[in-house]
């Protein structure tokens, strides 16, 4: 049977298999009706003048102010004071490396940020120009608590969106700053990330969560994460793994064969870390009950195979979010 025939057969079979779920669909229908009754009670019972007013607020006024939907969703750009290029430093390099390893955000350029002269005790401020949008990064000394920092935005004057910060010492004369739409703040490890793209904030949140989990797992097994490099198959076109790509693909296949049957619904997906010379790999994951798991593989050059050398599990601390 060729692929075309198999696909047709599979389609038919899948349809037949689904017939049993007709009863189950009734429950979904009931839940939708329930939610509509709840939802419908507000918007759909509004009098027409109120709906017209709502439309004016959500569509007409923003367009009159020169906004558009894409701007509202984060496509607007923060107004820049200058385009000076500035020197990089270790902390900035580390952020770029993290984004490169853990996400699809690639930093293309580093430039001066309009936050440069805003904070009193800041170590480094830069703007990262990435393939997903701009991120202004302010790195503070460890003694500065950025968790209490809040972004305060003012949309009250049409066409003149401004913002400032509370919870930190700032140079009053530098604020408020101008923007063409909403901004979003992400805080982590004495660092503030400011962007006009809400999707970037979500990605940063995910990236730093994964890093914390990976750090915890490495620590729980007494391993030094700095000795290894994170290998994501999605990143396999990136330079640093090109030479050993075939071996890493073998590692993916081999470790998946072993671990797949152990994984349960709700577990964190396994992550592969390879040592700097490509001879040893650690595959780690966390169960939904917080247990940390580690599989150690070594590459045998004679047989050109990855061999499982160790397999350990310990109770971890960090839990897995569900969204």
């Amino acid at each position: 049977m060729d692929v075309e025939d198999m696909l047709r057969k599979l389609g038919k079979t899948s349809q037949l298999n689904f017939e049993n779920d007709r009863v189950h669909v009734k429950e979904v229908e009931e839940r939708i009706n329930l939610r509509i009754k709840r939802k419908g009670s507000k918007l759909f019972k509004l009098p027409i003048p109120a709906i017209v007013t709502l439309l004016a607020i959500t569509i007409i006024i923003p367009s009159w102010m020169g906004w558009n939907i894409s701007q509202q969703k984060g496509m607007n750009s923060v107004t820049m004071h200058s385009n000076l290029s500035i020197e990089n430093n270790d902390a900035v390099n580390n952020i770029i490396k993290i984004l490169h390893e853990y996400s699809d955000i690639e930093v293309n350029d580093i430039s001066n940020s309009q936050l440069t002269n805003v904070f009193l005790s800041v170590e480094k401020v830069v703007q990262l120009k990435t393939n997903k949008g701009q991120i202004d990064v302010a790195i503070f000394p460890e003694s500065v608590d950025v968790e209490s920092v809040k972004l305060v935005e003012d949309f009250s004057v049409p066409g003149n969106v401004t913002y400032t910060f509370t919870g930190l010492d700032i140079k009053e004369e530098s604020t408020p700053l101008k923007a063409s739409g909403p901004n979003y703040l992400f805080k982590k490890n004495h660092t503030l990330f400011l962007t006009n793209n809400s999707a970037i904030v979500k990605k940063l949140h995910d990236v730093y969560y994964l890093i914390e989990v990976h750090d915890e797992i490495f620590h729980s097994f007494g391993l030094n994460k700095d000795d290894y490099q994170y290998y994501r198959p999605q990143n396999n076109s990136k330079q640093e793994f090109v030479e050993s790509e075939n071996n890493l693909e073998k590692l993916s296949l081999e470790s998946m064969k072993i671990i797949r049957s152990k994984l349960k619904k709700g577990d964190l997906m396994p992550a592969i870390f390879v040592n700097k010379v490509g001879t040893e790999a650690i595959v780690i994951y966390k169960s939904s009950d917080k247990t940390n798991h580690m599989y150690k593989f070594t590459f045998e050059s004679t047989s050109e195979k990855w061999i499982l050398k160790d397999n350990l599990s310990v109770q971890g601390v960090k839990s897995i979010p569900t969204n």
Partner: protein
Amino acid sequence: MIPGMTLLNETMDSSFEHLMQAHLYKVYRLCYWLVKDRTAAEDITQEVFLRAYKHLSTFRGDSRIETWLYRIAVNESKRYVRSWSFRNIFYFAQPVDKGIIDTESQVIRKDELANLALLIDKLPFRHRQILILHYYEELSIETISEILGISTGAVYTRLHRAREQIKTLISKEGEIWM
């Protein structure tokens, strides 16, 4: 099938009732095939119909209402597949392969089909969706083109590429890291 213009002539609630009766099962089925998780498929289906309810009065009837619902379902499923939990948390493969084996064991080479279903799950969403719409849903190229908002030529191209990817995966004969 309920023509869009007929719907506009009825009250919204009764139109919506008809809409659910006619399409809920197929939309839920499509969502399930796309995300391979019953709970997630239920949630997405609810979201599809809540959106449909909200926008039913603005439905212009340019396309069939089924196409419109499918378009929402595909987009919502895509959003789910791109979410953090889907990418980072392991989900048990639903017993699709078991079902295939139970139903077809007397007739077909069950392992081949079961493996093919698993291979489809491993394809990127854009290729998986095109195979599901064409082979599982048995939709025409024109309808798929309307649902995805791409030309019929692009549908043919994607279908071809998806089949090629399947052939490549089959020839590799092994598990591939997700």
